[in-house]
């Protein structure tokens, strides 16, 4: 069996407003509602809506022989709900066909997998619930933010109950091996790995409209020819890309929609390939070997590492200071704070602080609302400073509430004691007077232990 596995990433961050240092402690609203709404609606019109309707038509046209997978971040889902519910509706329609798989990821499109299991699994669960609620599926396959993966992360994901995970077919990890097979985790072989064929994926996602590319223009016939040229025993071609490839990164005028519309037909006509969802790939194919990834990889830049998010000192400072607050955030029990914490974790904020774009090109600057990474860092740190004040205040308030509650109990008990002693004194007029007097210190002691116990 030879098959193609299409997976599309859908994500939009909640962008921050310009937040100055004099706002710290005075203004606790961090978001740029105007750009969030206008960007989302623009992308909805240019990409999500037309692309969804195209995918729906293709699935219906080929009666389920064409099938795809999505991963939609929780943050993007929230924005659809707020600004473009019709997009959510069109995804539900796709889910309804039974030929679209929805993958699991971190709710906040975060890098929490690098910070241990607790916050990571919390976000994965939160996201799974959301997917279940909207699309009626319980995600079986996990894809981490920016396809970040390592042996340890894979092991955590297995423990969370996933059977397969997606990541990058990074050259420095694979060496001579081909990404076109099913692999497994090096620690726990129960976790199957689907590796992105970055050459063929990026031919569509990045190079499609590049007129200086020697293969321009890319036709479906040419693309299917390349699929056919892969060795016969290679079983799966994983085409993983941002969904915004359609209509946003590659404009409609480039013919990207026409390409996609024609692709399944050409595949069926000119090749033995079928289409599968990640779950089906994991189920139907045999694992050929384990992949050892001791250091985290991602699908970004030439290096396929984490340096786009955690490559310089600013990014590290922001990242460490944010996650240092984790415990307090949940201790506060304040929903608004927990929500802000999620929005602060969105990986895009760290991407904006990357100094790599000084050398590593347009992709970085294209998505960046800030003039410079320094700008992005200061804005983020100002917000984080305010957030920290809020978190501390909430935790402090919690302590205050406790103190109020406890002193109330003490007061009540004191009153009770006084009453009882009064009754005692009333019952035994003369000799008791002495005993009451002598007991007074021990009453105080009682009060002390009560306080301690509560």
């Amino acid at each position: 069996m030879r098959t193609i596995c299409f997976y599309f990433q859908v994500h939009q961050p909640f962008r921050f407003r310009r937040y100055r240092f004099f706002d710290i402690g005075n203004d606790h609203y961090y978001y740029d509602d105007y750009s969030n709404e206008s960007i989302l609606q623009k992308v909805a019109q240019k990409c999500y809506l037309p692309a969804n309707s195209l995918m729906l038509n293709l699935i219906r046209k080929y009666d389920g022989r064409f099938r795809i997978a999505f991963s939609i971040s929780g943050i993007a889902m929230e924005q659809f709900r707020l600004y473009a519910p019709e997009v959510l509706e069109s995804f539900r329609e796709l889910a309804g066909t039974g030929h679209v798989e929805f993958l699991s990821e971190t709710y906040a499109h975060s890098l929490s997998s690098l910070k241990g299991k607790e916050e990571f699994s919390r976000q994965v669960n939160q996201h799974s619930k959301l997917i279940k609620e909207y699309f009626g599926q319980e995600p079986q396959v996990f894809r981490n933010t920016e396809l970040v993966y390592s042996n340890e992360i894979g092991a955590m994901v297995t423990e969370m109950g996933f059977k397969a995970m997606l990541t990058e077919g990074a050259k420095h990890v694979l060496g001579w091996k081909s990404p076109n097979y099913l692999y497994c985790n090096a620690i726990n072989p129960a976790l199957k790995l689907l590796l992105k064929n970055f050459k063929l994926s990026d031919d569509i996602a990045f190079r499609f409209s590049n007129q200086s590319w020697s293969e321009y223009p890319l036709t479906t016939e040419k693309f299917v020819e390349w699929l056919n040229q892969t060795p016969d025993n290679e079983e799966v071609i994983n085409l993983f890309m941002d969904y915004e490839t359609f209509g946003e990164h590659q404009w409609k005028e480039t013919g990207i929609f026409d390409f996609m519309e024609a692709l399944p037909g050409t595949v069926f006509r000119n090749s033995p390939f079928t289409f599968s969802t990640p779950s089906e790939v994991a189920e139907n194919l045999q694992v050929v070997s384990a992949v050892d990834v001791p250091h985290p990889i991602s699908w970004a830049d030439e290096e396929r590492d984490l340096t786009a998010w955690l490559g310089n000192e600013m990014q590290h400072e922001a990242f460490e200071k944010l996650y240092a607050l984790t415990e307090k955030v949940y201790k506060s029990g304040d929903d608004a704070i927990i929500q802000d914490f999620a929005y602060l974790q969105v990986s895009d904020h760290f991407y904006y602080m990357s100094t790599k774009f000084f050398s590593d090109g347009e992709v970085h600057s294209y998505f960046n609302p800030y003039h410079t990474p320094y700008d992005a860092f200061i804005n983020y740190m100002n917000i984080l400073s305010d957030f920290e004040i809020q978190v501390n205040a909430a935790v402090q308030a919690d302590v205050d509430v406790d103190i109020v509650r406890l002193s109330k109990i003490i007061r009540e008990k004191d009153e009770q004691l006084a009453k009882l002693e009064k009754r005692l004194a009333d019952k035994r007029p003369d000799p008791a007077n002495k005993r009451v007097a002598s007991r007074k210190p021990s009453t105080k002691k009682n009060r002390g232990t009560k306080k301690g116990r509560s």
Partner: protein
Amino acid sequence: MFGWEFPPHISGGLGTACYGLTRGMASISGLEILFVVPKAYGDEDQSRVRLLGAGDVSLDIRKVKEHQYLQDLSYIEIHSNLLPYTSPEEYEELVNKAEHQGERLVHTSMGGKLSFTGKYGKNLYEEIANYAVVAGEVALKYDFDIIHSHDWLTYPAGIAAKRASGKPLVIHVHATDFDRSGGKVNPTVFEIEKMGMHLADKIIAVSNLTRKTVIEKYGIDPDKVETVYNAVDPLPDHEKLKLKRGINDKVVTFLGRITLQKGPEYFVQAAHKVLQKMDNVRFVMAGSGELLEKMIHWTASLGISDRFHFTGFLKGDDVFRMFSISDVYVMPSVSEPFGISPLEAMQSNVPSIISYQSGVAEILKHAFKVDFWDVDALADAIYGILNYPSLARMFKKYGVQEVNDMKWENSGKKVYDIYREFVK
């Protein structure tokens, strides 16, 4: 080359730039530079340039000519008391004031064929004209291939030399009157600049910002104008210049002439904002200029005088001493053709904030950039650098690297390439 000042007797970036450029060109073989300034003092850097003092050079052209063959750079002195950045109006005031106090600003110990009398220098334009006359003389007596004039005060000299010799004229625009005046251009200065630019065979601008001004405001053919960025000399032995910091407070420094062009008021406003949020910080305004008193009054009325300090004009090593105790350097210039001082700050490991309205912003990556009028952004950047430690570390680490890659040799090479267009 005709230039109006040469270190250490400078009042701004012009002299520094001329000096750097000549040094950067000193290593080019087969190239000799004759540098003509209105007045030489004799204590200028003589490691690469042999300088001739006023007493030595009595405009005996023949004698100087011999020196030219001995030295890469000869240096003719024409006595002058002019400041290149003083407007003619201010200059008049200065001279009047000086006379009133019974001082003689002007010496006329000049020998030679020109009648530099006691009245000479009283009028700026007259001085420029006299300088041009000397330039014409120099052009006749010396053998050279290219005339290179730095800024408007020496354009007439360049033109005179070109007329006398027929050699190509390159003018080097370090600033225009649009930068200096904040838009209220002095018509006479504008005319001189315009004439120089039109008669020049080639124009060198110190940034694309300046190139644009030259093309748009003076109506010059874009093909004639080329950008050659300035650079910065390697830091002098800066360990020696370290000042012991007497206070625990952070120090934020403005260093430049306190004039409209440099945007000192934006610095005061930003300081006021920052001081409302943190108290372990002090602001220093180093420099002098027509807005100094206004700034002093203003900081007093804002109630921040106890945290805002004025040092007066700093030069030479004092600049680097100031940098050695600074945590942030700020250059909020309204219009800065280039701006060498942030480079000097960065060399001294001081994170810098510069305005987008400066030429140096075109080439610097590891400096924080704001629009000069955006006081909120400026204050925010100052606060950020003082409070989020990784930011200062990043600026220091990459800033020094970046600045060290800017070499006068590269600028000198570019200027030389421009010469080669005329001299095969």
